């Protein structure tokens, strides 16, 4: 009976170790706080109607940023825990973590950073910016977009579920390599949590990617040909095409792993004729292109940033686009370089090594194109530009170490070592994450209506740059000294100083993260002075800057007509056309996405714990929701032209009033010292006047 009701879930599975209990307490505390806050502010209805059920890609983008931001903190905490263990656990000392716990942490760290931080931010940026850049009012399928977002949230919950409802997380490394991930070697529910977290969010990614391909290919402003598309949109298009190509492989592979574990099948097991090497092949056929899914939008961001802040068009648009297309095509044919060491023959290894080295060509082309763009430009050193300059140097090192690793004989020595770990962190932090930061800073005025504080932003940048090299420089060296990755303990005490430096570097990065949070708060405090009243704070070149900041929910009152690249720049030279208002079709908000994702989450939870009734009920629920949604014909409404005109007029008035309100000559951006002073004053004020009572 009990088995029927709650499957394998039982009291013993509930959290009882300090880290799960701590995590559970923290999550419950945060949840409770938010619930009380929202109830007190009477904001439930607002939250539901304006945000949770929204189909506006801009709002969905912001929700992606918020969730991914929290996950960055969560994954960052994991990173610090890993570094701390490795700094301590030398020789006689075994650190503060058991090996099992340590392995769960690095597994969760990898999953979270790739799937829920990097992917989250990338999807957030694409959601917010792509429609604006191509002159579209919404996406091809607004519903698929909310569904994709909520499935992503479902994955986020699943990856953290072991804190609340018990069990452990996987201890297999972020790819759940077989046969380690089989029930024979990983009997607990950890791998199942991982499978379902990735499966749910992975389906969301596929749906989202289909949606963006449709949007970019079918919904561009009239006149915008493929050769006019802004480079960020090009990067996103390449990235999304790769995502629809490889995420189905991930889904199928994880499904087979699930069948092995749930139904006792023999795909990747050591017994029954299973073939574990096949898993390694399949997972990397997804895994390698995934890295490029993440980095191509960043390449796009940097292309925009370099061009705008050099006040110059990109030096060779065709080369840049061909570079991106080249990278994405080649990325599909290099997966085997992740396991030269499995022992394929020399010919196979040489082929994949060569393909991998060829990828460096289009990548280098992009870098050279950016450098040529700087030449004879008028360069402004804003923070997005700083991220760019930091990125190129760092990325160059990552690229070079990548070419070394691409050579099979060298890879035999470097594979599975900390050198490899340092290499891919160089690419993913220096390439992907800094690109995202550059993009967020660059587009922040469009998102929030005010610029970010540049002074504190610069401090954050330097902390990240120096922290990064302190943290990962030693890992390169340790790899060359023969240190393998994922060690919870080592006997060679001469490694310890390097691990300690790495930990310090990690703390410097953390300081950078804190500064970024401070930066946002400080900018919010000065939002009136930092306000972007023109909609075009950087003298931008692409269409998103032709809209007011923040962009209205219908994006464009009048759909722009495009005839060239850098459409807005050209328009500014020629004079902006007169506005003619028209009726606008807008999609209605829908809760279907949130319901389906919730049910998918429940089904996944049922699969993790073998709760059959829950699986059946949730699946039926999904079918019903999908049917109801598909045959709902009332999914749009029309915003009349007069209404648009009225809204535009009101906005213009407000912007004008705000504009007159700013005294740029006396305004100074807040520094750190000023921020601390103001913050302390505010806290003291709250305490003295007992302001929390009025909340």
């Amino acid at each position, binding site marked *: 009976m009990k088995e029927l009701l709650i499957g394998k879930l039982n009291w013993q599975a509930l959290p009882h170790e300090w880290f799960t209990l701590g995590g559970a307490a923290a999550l419950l505390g945060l949840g409770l706080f938010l619930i009380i806050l929202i109830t007190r502010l009477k904001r439930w209805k607002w939250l539901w109607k304006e945000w949770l059920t929204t189909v506006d890609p801009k709002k969905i983008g912001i929700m992606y940023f918020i969730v991914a931001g929290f996950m960055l903190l969560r994954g960052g905490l994991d990173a610090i825990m890993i570094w701390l263990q490795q700094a301590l656990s030398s020789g006689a000392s075994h650190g503060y973590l058991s090996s099992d716990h340590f392995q769960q942490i690095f597994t969760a760290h990898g999953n979270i950073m790739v799937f829920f931080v990097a992917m989250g931010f990338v999807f957030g940026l694409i959601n917010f910016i792509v429609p604006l850049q191509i002159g579209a009012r919404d996406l091809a399928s607004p519903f698929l977009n909310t569904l994709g977002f909520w499935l992503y949230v479902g994955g986020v919950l699943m990856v953290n579920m072991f804190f609340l409802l018990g069990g452990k997380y996987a201890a297999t490394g972020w790819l759940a390599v077989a046969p380690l991930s089989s029930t024979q070697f990983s009997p607990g529910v950890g791998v199942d949590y991982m499978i379902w977290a990735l499966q749910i969010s992975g389906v969301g990614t596929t749906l989202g990617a289909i949606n963006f391909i449709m949007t970019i290919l*079918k919904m561009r402003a*009239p006149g915008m040909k493929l050769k006019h598309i802004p480079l960020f949109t090009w990067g996103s298009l390449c990235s999304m095409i790769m995502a629809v*190509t490889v995420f189905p*492989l991930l889904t199928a592979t994880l499904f087979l792993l699930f069948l092995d574990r749930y139904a006792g099948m023999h795909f990747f097991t050591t017994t*029954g004729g*299973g*073939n574990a090497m*096949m898993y390694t092949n399949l997972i990397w056929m997804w895994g390698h292109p995934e890295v490029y899914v993440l980095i191509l939008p960043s390449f796009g961001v940097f292309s925009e940033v370099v061009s705008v802040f050099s006040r110059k068009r990109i030096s060779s648009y065709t080369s840049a686009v061909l570079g991106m297309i080249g990278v994405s095509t080649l990325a599909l044919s290099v997966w085997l370089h992740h396991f030269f060491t499995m022992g394929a023959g020399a010919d196979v290894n040489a082929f994949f090594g060569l393909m991998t080295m060829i990828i460096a060509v289009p990548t280098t082309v992009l870098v050279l194109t950016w450098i040529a763009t700087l030449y004879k430009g008028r360069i402004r050193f804003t923070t997005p530009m700083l991220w760019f300059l930091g990125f190129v140097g760092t990325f160059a090192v990552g690229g070079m170490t990548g070419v070394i690793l691409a050579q099979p004989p060298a890879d035999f020595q470097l594979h599975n070592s900390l050198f490899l770990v340092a290499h891919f962190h160089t690419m993913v932090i220096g390439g992907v994450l800094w690109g995202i930061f550059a993009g967020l800073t660059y587009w922040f005025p469009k998102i929030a209506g005010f610029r970010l504080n540049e002074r504190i932003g610069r401090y954050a940048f330097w902390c990240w740059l120096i922290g990064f090299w302190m943290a990962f420089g030693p890992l390169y060296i340790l790899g060359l000294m023969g240190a393998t990755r994922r060690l919870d303990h080592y006997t060679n005490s001469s490694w310890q100083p390097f691990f300690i430096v790495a930990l310090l570097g990690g703390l410097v990065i953390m300081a950078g993260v804190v500064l970024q949070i401070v930066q946002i708060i400080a900018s919010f405090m000065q939002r009136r002075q930092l306000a972007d009243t023109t909609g075009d704070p950087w003298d931008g070149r692409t269409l998103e800057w032709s809209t007011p900041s923040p962009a209205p929910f219908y994006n464009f009152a009048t759909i722009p007509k495009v005839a060239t690249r850098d459409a807005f720049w050209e328009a500014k030279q020629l004079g902006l056309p007169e506005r003619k208002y028209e009726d606008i079709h807008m999609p209605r908000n829908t809760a279907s996405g949130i319901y389906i994702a919730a049910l998918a989450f429940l089904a996944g939870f049922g699969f993790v714990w073998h709760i059959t009734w829950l699986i059946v009920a949730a699946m039926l629920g999904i079918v019903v929701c999908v049917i109801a949604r598909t045959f709902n*014909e009332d999914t749009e409404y029309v915003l009349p032209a007069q209404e648009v005109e009225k809204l535009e007029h009101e906005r213009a008035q407000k912007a004008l009033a705000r504009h007159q309100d700013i005294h740029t000559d006396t305004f100074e951006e807040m520094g750190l010292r000023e921020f601390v002073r103001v913050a302390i004053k505010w806290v003291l004020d709250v305490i003295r006047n007992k302001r929390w009572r009025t909340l």
Partner: protein
Amino acid sequence: MADTMTTEMTHEEAANNRAMFGFWVYLMTDLLMFGVLFAVFAVLHNNTAGGSSGRELFKLKLALIETFLLLTSSFACGLAMIAARQGNKNQVLAWFTVTFVLGVAFLSLELTEFGQLIHDGNTPSSSAFLSSFFTLVGAHGLHITLGLLWMVIVMAYVLARGLSSSMVRKLTMLSLYWHFLDIVWIFIFTIVYLRAFI
């Protein structure tokens, strides 16, 4: 091309056009998933772990009948679509009913085959070969099941709401999906069943 088209199309036509394009992309992702299952079958089909091989287990005649049923149902589906473009509601319903009945017949034969295999102790967990066989053929069967469910619902809506342009689009998607499953089955028939006897 696409640009000039979108400007000339009405809002609804453009939406239908986009949805069809998106559905094609979705079918491609589905094809890739089947691609993985086919590749896995190709790798594992000899790994019988001492158990029976495909030659010993499969009945070619049964597979042939299944193929015939599915191909005929696809043909009926095609006729239903011709009727749909002519706006003939009754014929649409009639031909989809034929498609549906043939699909159910296919599915029941497949389930009978599975039932027989499992009854004889050749379960999905017996060997890697059988795991990959049941998964590949079962995944196709699951798609067929969903297709049948979809068909029933679409027919109910056609009955209730008639053939609007968005309904015809939904029917087109369904028929695409059905033909797609047909093609996948041809590959299954060739690679899984026929090849076992060569």
